[in-house]
C-alpha cells in the first residue's frame, strides 16, 4: 500500500508498504530517517519515540497505514521544531502544548551537513551533550523527543516530574543521573532565555 504523511514538515510518500510495517520501519528503512531507534519494537523502551500530531508515541506501535495524512516529528527534525516553537513565543507560559494546527504549520529547514558538524541544536539536545547524558546514544533520540515535549508542557519540572515523563524511555548506559542533569540544565537554560 501507499502511505502519505508529513515528516519534519515535509510531505513524504512511501510505496509498496507491507501492511504489517510500523511507522518506525517506514521512517528508518523507506524514508532514510534512522534516527528513531529500534531497540525493542514492543513499546517498552521508548527509543523510537516520535511526535504524532504533536503527541509523543512509540513509532514501533503505530501501524504505517495509521499515519496517512498525519504529522510526524522525529529527532532529525527536533532542532528545527524547537527553533520554530521558540520563534513563535514557544511555551514560556507553560500553558500551551503543541496544537495540531501548530504542528501542521511547522516546516523544517535543511541541515547543513552529513556529519552533524555545525548543526544547530535544540536546547535539550545541547544539554544532553553538555551534561554527559550521551554514552552509547541509542536511547538518546527517544529521550530527546520525550524530554523536549515535557519541557514544552512543563518548563519547570520537579525531579519527580522528569522521572515520570521519562519513565517510558530505557537507558542502559548512564544510570539516568546525567539524563536528569541534562533535563534540569535544559529547563534552567530555557528559564534564563525567558
Amino acid at each position, binding site marked *: 500500500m501507499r502511505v502519505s504523511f508529513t515528516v519534519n514538515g515535509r510531505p513524504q510518500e512511501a510505496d509498496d508498504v507491507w501492511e*504489517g510495517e510500523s511507522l518506525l520501519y517506514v521512517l528508518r528503512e523507506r524514508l532514510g530517517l534512522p534516527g528513531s531507534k529500534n531497540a525493542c519494537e514492543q513499546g517498552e523502551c521508548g527509543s523510537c519515540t516520535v511526535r504524532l500530531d504533536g503527541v509523543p508515541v512509540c513509532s514501533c506501535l503505530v*501501524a504505517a497505514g495509521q499515519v496517512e495524512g498525519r504529522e510526524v516529528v522525529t529527532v532529525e527534525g527536533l532542532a528545527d521544531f524547537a527553533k520554530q516553537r521558540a520563534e513563535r513565543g514557544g511555551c514560556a507560559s507553560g500553558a500551551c502544548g503543541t496544537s495540531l494546527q501548530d504542528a501542521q504549520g511547522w516546516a523544517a529547514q535543511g541541515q547543513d551537513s552529513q556529519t552533524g558538524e555545525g548543526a544547530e541544536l535544540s536546547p535539550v539536545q545541547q544539554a544532553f551533550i553538555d551534561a554527559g547524558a550521551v554514552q552509547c546514544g541509542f536511547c538518546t533520540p527517544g529521550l530527546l523527543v520525550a524530554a523536549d515535549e515535557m519541557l514544552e508542557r512543563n518548563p519547570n519540572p520537579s525531579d519527580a516530574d522528569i522521572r515520570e515523563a521519562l519513565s517510558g524511555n530505557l537507558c542502559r548506559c548512564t544510570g539516568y543521573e546525567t539524563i536528569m542533569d541534562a533535563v534540569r540544565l535544559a529547563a534552567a537554560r530555557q528559564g534564563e532565555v525567558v
Partner: protein
Amino acid sequence: MDFLRPASWEEALAAKAEHPTAVPIAGGTDVMVEINFDHRRPEYLLDLNRIGDLEEWEVGAESVRLGASVPYTKIMENLRGELPGLALASHTVASPQIRNRGGVGGNLGTASPAGDAHPALLAAGAEVEVESVRGSRLIPIDEFYTGVKRNALAADELIRAVRIKKADGPQQYSKVGTRNAMVIAVCAFGLALHPETRTVRTGIGSAAPTPVRAKVAEEFLNAALEEGGFWDNGKIITPSVAKQFADLCAGACNPIDDVRGTASYRRHAVGVMARRTLTWTWESYRGTAARTEGVA
C-alpha cells in the same frame, strides 16, 4: 495482510461484518507488538484511528460514556473526578507514550486478565457498548470477560464505548509490579465505595483466568458495614472486618505461577491491596483523607 481504513463508524461496522477475522487496531499497543514479534499475522487490520467519535467522551447524569479509543492520558487529565478509580488505573498503564495511544477499548478487546483498566471498571460498574451492522447492545462488565483473552463480543462486533458509572464515593486502585514504572501487573485490585447504594464493589486483575470481582468479599463487607451502621456513624472499620474482607478477596483469586509472580504471592498481594484500598477509601469517606493520595 490487508489494511482497512474506514473513515466512519458505519464503514468500520460494514468492514467488520464483511471480514469478521479483521483485527481492530486503534492505539496499536497490543496488536503491533504481536505483529512485530511475528506472533500474529491477521488477514485484515481494521484501523479505527480515523473515527474521531471513538476518542470522545460525554459526562452524563449517571455515567460517563467513554469512547473506546480515548487515550489513558486523557482519562487521567480529564476524568479524575468522575472516574477516580479508572484515572488511577490509567496512570499505572505502561509509559506516557503508551498512555498517549492506548485506551480502554483495547484493554477490553484484548481481554487479558492483566489489562490495567479491568479492575477499575468492575469496581465502578460499567457496561460495554458494542455494535455491529446488526445493531447495538450493552454488555454488563460482569458478563464481558468470558475466558483467558476472550470476551463476549461476536465476530462482527466492535467496541464503541464504555458506559461507566460516575463515582458516588471514593475509589482506589492498586497494582503490583516488580518495577516502579512501566510494568505489566503481577496482580491488581480496584475498589469503589458506593454510598448511594451502600455497597462496595471490587475488581481483581491478573489473579484469575479473567478479571473478576470478589463477590463473597463484597457481600461480607456490605453486610458488616450495614450491621455496624458504618455508613452512618462513619466509624473506623475494625481490623478484624478489614482482615476478613482481605482474606475473602484473596480467596476470590484463582491465580497461576508464571514468570511475573507466583500464585501464592498473587493471592497474598491481593489481600494486602484489598485491605489498604479499603482503608484509603473508607478514610476518605469518613472525611479524613489519608495524607498521601495516589496521583492520577
